């Protein structure tokens, strides 16, 4: 089901990113999916996310589809040229994948195959226009397709990025090309989100605010020094600093809940990126958005 349907029905949409296996054993992956599946509208499957090589998102999404779980398939331009991109999109549609998230992708250097050749034949804007063109029954060079896919296209945005203007400009282009929803990078500052929402209000596209629970003070410091646009305020870090380990989860979840409760009225959904803390995601989601009724 298209995510845009949910938005149209006025639903506060929740997605959670789950990392595909590195290898072919799916046990742990499926276990993790089980933890969150009743608390989300869809599960995001990364495409060799953060440039770490893993099982193909397409195959993993197919697996979820078979289990009647709605996937959002991420597709990056880092590892494919325009031929591969279009062909993967057609393949995805064939196995029933409807929601896609199109991103340019972190460069190989941040991941575990630093020597890999970055492709970037397309950028994030041309990615969107390619997908849109497929849905209209044409490939990017104008050849007709025998049967067109039907996609709900998502893109990403980074509200904390500075300077904001060039970034917003690109976002505008992506939407002009046909993007239908936005999932943002994680934001810890209500004001940053307010400013962003104001800037994108004219686009009239639903926004899901990205959220990563703070696993430790050190992880927060790491994000501050390594993730562009992410800024965990010192106040939050100090809340976690020096806490006995057993207390961190409890405190951190409360911080997430407080923050997201204040963000909820501003946006249309939450996108959880919780690398390894999936077990805590339901607690936060439920506290913020209430128990999820069965999918409409």
């Amino acid at each position, binding site marked *: 089901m298209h995510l845009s349907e949910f938005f149209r029905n006025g639903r506060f949409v929740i997605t959670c990113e789950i990392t595909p296996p590195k290898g072919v054993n799916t046990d742990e992956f499926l276990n993790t999916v089980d933890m969150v599946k009743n608390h989300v509208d869809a599960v995001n499957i990364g495409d060799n996310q953060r440039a*770490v090589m893993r099982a193909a998102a397409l195959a993993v999404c197919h697996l979820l589809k078979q289990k009647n779980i709605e996937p959002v398939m991420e597709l990056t331009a880092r590892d494919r040229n325009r031929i591969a991109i279009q062909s993967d999109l057609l393949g995805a549609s064939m196995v029933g994948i409807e929601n896609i998230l199109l991103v340019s992708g*972190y460069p190989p250097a941040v991941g*575990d195959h630093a020597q890999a050749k970055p492709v970037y034949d397309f950028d994030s804007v041309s990615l969107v226009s390619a997908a849109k063109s497929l849905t209209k029954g044409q490939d990017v060079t104008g050849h007709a397709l025998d049967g067109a896919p039907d996609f709900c296209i998502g893109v990403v945005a980074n509200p904390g990025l500075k300077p904001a203007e060039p970034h917003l400009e690109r976002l505008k282009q992506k939407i002009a090309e046909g993007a239908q929803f936005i999932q943002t990078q994680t934001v810890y500052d209500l004001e940053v989100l307010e400013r962003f929402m104001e800037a994108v209000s004219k686009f009239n596209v639903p926004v899901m605010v990205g959220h990563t629970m703070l696993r*430790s003070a050190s*992880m927060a*410091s*790491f994000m501050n*020094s390594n993730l562009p646009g992410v800024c965990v305020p010192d106040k939050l870090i100090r809340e976690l600093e020096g806490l006995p*380990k057993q207390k961190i989860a409890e405190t951190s979840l409360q911080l997430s809940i407080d923050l997201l409760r204040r963000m909820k009225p501003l946006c249309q959904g939450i996108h959880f990126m919780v690398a390894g803390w999936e077990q805590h995601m339901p607690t936060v989601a439920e506290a913020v958005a209430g128990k999820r009724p069965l999918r409409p």
Partner: protein
Amino acid sequence: MNNLNQADRVLVIASARDLVDMIKEGAGGNLEVTYAANQKEGLEKARKDLPAIIVLGYLEPQGTAFQLHRKLQEGWITKNIPLLIVDLQSDDSRPVLSMEEGLQMEADEYLALRRGDGQVSLTRLAEPIARLREKLHTRLKTTANIVREAILDPNTFCVTWEQVPGRGAFEMQQEELVENARRAARKGKIHAVSVTDNPGGNPAISTEILCTEVRKLGIEPLVHLAFRDKNRNECESILYGLAGLGVRNLLLLTGDYPSSGGFKGRSKPVFDLDSVHGLQLVQMMNNGMEHEAMGKKTTLAPTDFFAGTSVSPFKQSEAELMGQYFKLKKKIESGADFVITQLGYDARKLHEVLTWLKVHGYSTPVMSNIYVLPLGAAKIMNTNQIPGCVVTDKLLEEVAQEAKAPDRGRSARLTRAAKMYAVAKGMGCAGAHIGGHGLTYEAVEEIIGKGEEMAKDWRTLVAQFDYPQRDGFYYFERDPQTGLNLETPAARPSRGSRTPIYEFSRLAHVTLFNPKSVVFKGFRPVARRLDSSSTLESAFGFFEHLTKVALFGCMNCGDCSLFDVAFLCPMSQCPKNQRNGPCGGSYEGWCEVHTDKKCVWVRAYERLKKHKEEEEIGDNCVPPCNWELMGTPSWLNFYLGRDHSAKRLGIQPPQEKAKPAESDKAKEAKETKKAA
């Protein structure tokens, strides 16, 4: 005693050594920096050396640092060691953690230090080094045991708050206890929350488990460990568990006698160890206990306990009080890091402990017990229903007056506690151990606040804590100027008492159990003969037992302690089996448990005093009974060098029996002779 060195070691694990140089440069002289170049070596050193902090840098190949970080965080041995990940970033370096790894990091601290390419000179790294130093020092502070620091630091007055757990798993008492600890942790005004161990000899929820919970709330627990209910193995086992979970502060106590409220009746009193033994056990563990496993000697990693014990100066008679101080001497010699006084309201008595320590050249810190006294408790204590807690008639009367106030005496009793706080602080105590039924955190803060205010005028308050017991004995002469003590010991008027059994036993002892005597030398071969045949041995044992039952009420423990307690058997005559001095529970000389009998240690004192030998009580730390000898004839055990008295006197087991060991020793002796 204070093994602080361990806190100063930093282990650096990184493929390149540059971090080591930076830390050495930045840390100043007091940090010892060790280095490991790869994962395997890093894990080994972390587990063996137990450093105060681990600093993890880039490790080849990429991904190793993250793996190791997981192992260190999850490992039983290393989980409590703070882990600092340092990313020395430059344009050509690889990050310590990939982005994905970074998001899953659970280290205590992450520090990204930017340096330009090719910057090797340390002087150009001054800023990152300064940040690193700051981080290390804040981390060291978090691992330091603040209770130890507060008690040992003469400029800090340590405050602990006593909590009493109750029976039951889900009771309001437990709820309140945890809530109190939570508030105390949040407010940060007190150093530790202490939890009593089966208080009053009643079963209660486990103090060890509550204390690990208290620690999770972010405040140091002080675990009371009473030897009433646990034998030596159980104590050791609990201590390992506590050490492993990072609980370090202990209060070792004999414990009240089991109450009659146990499951289907009174519980079996254990008292396998006394507090002197407990302190010795902890000391041994702190030094790295040696033991034999499968024929191989191994040394266990040292623990880091800070262990205190109690002393009861509020004793009425000379014999009781002297017994307390003899035992205190042994406790200090066995490694007591601090002492807490028993409950009492007589300032001169508190001062007596401080003076006693000073006069005897000990620097052991003293915590004063401050119990907020409501009328109900005062009545119970006045009639001596809580062993060792002294409330005199005069004090009871005052409390009864106060209770007539509209607030039913609340402000008066908090003020009394605050005044005690002031007196204790002024007098030179290291801290206050505050307790009281239903005491709220706010009340504790009030006591601290008012107490601190009044502390400078403490001398004027002393007169308000003048509660001598009827004919109460004081160790020192009274100082008429201060109302406290001079450093001159008072006369000890007791003349002792002479009992025929004791006099006879003394005589027998000198002739029969003196390794230098003719009788001893003559009887030793006979003892060996008796020992070699089980029939002879049991016949002899039967005879010995009969004699000793008749004379001393012997329990046939085989590790006879009659010599240590002036021929009073601590196994049968002392309900708490105290081998090193009296417990704190006696009342005007009468035993806490058998209130119609004199405390054995009072009797022992009197017997020895007659011969001017009473000081001997404080001389030897008597080990706990060796249960291996249970039921065997103790005379043979003595003659054949097997029991603790024989060992103390240097009586060796006969040679044939332990041939290989002996011949080894002989060889060694020869060799040393040669060398000489």
